[in-house]
């Protein structure tokens, strides 16, 4: 029974990996087609308007643009799979290297926000579900509703005004104070690009504290929005589970309510909750453009938006590919977790 489950899990993972590859190539096909359809000539955007015919021909050949379409696509795919997303028109730097600088900022912010959203949202939703209609339930619902309906930039500006401007509890925009920024660049090895992780690994707690005082406000803001979603979904999943017969069975056995809710029902709530958390995390990993703008956070959202504004197609499409890859990866991860918590999943 157990080994059957193991082999089936292994086969499933193989299947998922294949799906993953196919989906990724599909994603590349879409970005490839976009790049050939948009009326921006890659050659003139590199060479400028006054290049000679010979220069243009030479550039076309170098970019592989003289080859048939399917061959161009093949080149694009093999390069992308090797981590080559072309050169940014704006900076002449490899897009992949640039994204490698911007993405960790987003990853750090999104991860912290999601952790906050889960740590607060799940218990809030569970407790609301155990006392539906109570004052507590109403309060959770109201706080959640505010998280849904308040414009992010407004919340962000108010947050900066109050907690940075008035109270001085947190630091302002950016990932570090200017003085620490220099220190960080010279003294800390950027292993992950996530400042909290890198400074912790280097044991530089002074910098860690400064980075934390910068990230906590935007992370709380995004965490609040994710908490609103997660708590609402948790509440409804938990209500549903608490109405099931196996809950009565646990009570018949004399189990305390704490255990009925947090063990019996919660294990079942985890199944759909994984998808919800993954979705919420993925949407944050896209880069929260407004939040990144308000907090001068150099993340993926700002990178793609800035590139879009100057029609830097390789950068835009490279960013899109990364966002897509993150979605695919998270999907696979949540699929795997799903299998772990739900024995009925085959």
């Amino acid at each position: 029974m157990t080994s059957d489950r193991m082999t089936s899990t292994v086969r499933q993972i193989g299947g998922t990996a294949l799906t993953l590859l196919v989906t990724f190539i599909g994603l590349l096909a879409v970005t490839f087609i976009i790049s050939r359809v948009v009326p921006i000539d890659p050659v003139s955007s590199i060479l400028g308007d006054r290049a000679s015919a010979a220069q243009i021909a030479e550039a076309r050949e170098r970019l592989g643009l003289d080859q048939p379409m399917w061959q161009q696509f093949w080149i694009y795919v093999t390069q992308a799979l090797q981590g080559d997303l072309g050169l940014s028109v704006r900076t002449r730097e490899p897009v992949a290297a640039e994204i490698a600088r911007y993405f960790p900022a987003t990853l750090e912010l999104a991860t912290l926000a999601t952790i906050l959203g889960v740590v607060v949202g799940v218990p809030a939703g569970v407790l609301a579900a155990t006392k539906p209609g109570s004052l507590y339930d109403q309060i959770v619902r109201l706080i959640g509703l505010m998280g849904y309906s308040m414009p992010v930039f407004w919340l962000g500006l108010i947050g900066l005004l109050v907690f940075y401007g008035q109270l001085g509890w947190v630091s302002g925009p950016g990932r570090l104070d200017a003085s620490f920024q220099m220190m960080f660049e010279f003294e800390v090895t950027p292993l992950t690009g996530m400042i909290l992780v890198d400074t912790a690994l280097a044991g530089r707690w002074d910098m860690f504290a400064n980075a934390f005082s910068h990230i906590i406000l935007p992370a709380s803001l995004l965490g609040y929005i994710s908490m609103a979603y997660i708590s609402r979904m948790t509440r409804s999943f938990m209500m549903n589970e608490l109405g099931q017969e196996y809950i009565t069975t646990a009570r018949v056995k004399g189990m305390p309510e704490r255990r009925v809710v947090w063990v019996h029902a919660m294990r079942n709530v985890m199944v759909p909750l994984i998808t919800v958390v993954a979705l919420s995390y993925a949407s944050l990993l896209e880069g929260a453009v407004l939040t990144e703008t308000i907090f001068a956070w150099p993340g993926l959202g700002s990178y793609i938006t800035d590139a879009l504004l100057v029609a830097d197609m390789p950068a835009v499409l490279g960013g899109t590919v990364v966002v897509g890859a993150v979605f695919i990866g998270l999907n696979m991860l949540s699929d795997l977790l799903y299998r772990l918590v739900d024995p009925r999943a085959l």
Partner: protein
Amino acid sequence: MTLLSVRNLKVSFDTETGVVEAVRGVSFDLGRERLGIVGESGSGKTMTGRSVLRLIRPPGRIEADEMRFDGVDLMGASETQMRALRGRRIAMVMQDPKYSLNPVMKVGAQLMEGLRQRDGLTRAAAHIKAVEALEAVQIRDPERVMLAYPHELSGGMGQRVMIAMMLIPNPDLLIADEPTSALDVTVQAEVLAILDGLVRDRGMGLIFISHDLRLVARFCDRVLVMYRGKIVEELAARDLLHARHPYTQGLLNCLPRIGGPRQPLPGLDRSADWAV
């Protein structure tokens, strides 16, 4: 010697379309005997059984003039007192194990849960007891079943797991809700023999809820016949198959007979005054 006495029990649900009265004034006494409850689907058998454990969840409400178990006032007992009774002294074999076992917990964990959490047994000791309980209900490879998840069990296995789980703590009162409906005849006989033994030797009280009038007539001492939340007839089990009451007769007429004439089964006549 009365183990459980119930006076004027009412269960009602406040729904959007008004109040649904699932149980409307049920009274009975139970000694250390086998009491059958029969009645058509929706007549309130399960709700009556669950009321004894005070496990009707909102919007359901329980009212009773009296509900007393072995000297304990069940209506007045605190939640903590009730929890001490549940599982240990009063247990309930739940109808339909397909929905009554936790789908994401292994059968073994669910069987051992009471022993570990409530009775504080070690893992090893609980395991031994759980395996014994499975063997007692005629499960042949208990170790394998311990590792299985509920969806990997057949209906009959699930039912036996449920029975084993509820018998583990040796309750004084067992409410068994359709406990043997999915078992084949031989296993059913074995399980009934176990229940019978517990009533005879240990003096357990048994409430046996079933659709199967022939089985109840054979197995129980006394029978309550329920219709729309009321007891319409109470009689000795041996008299059940010759009952005079029109509703009970109606239920009996609905039983197909092997080798009998093949006609459409007759419906119930609900026009009489008991049917209000």
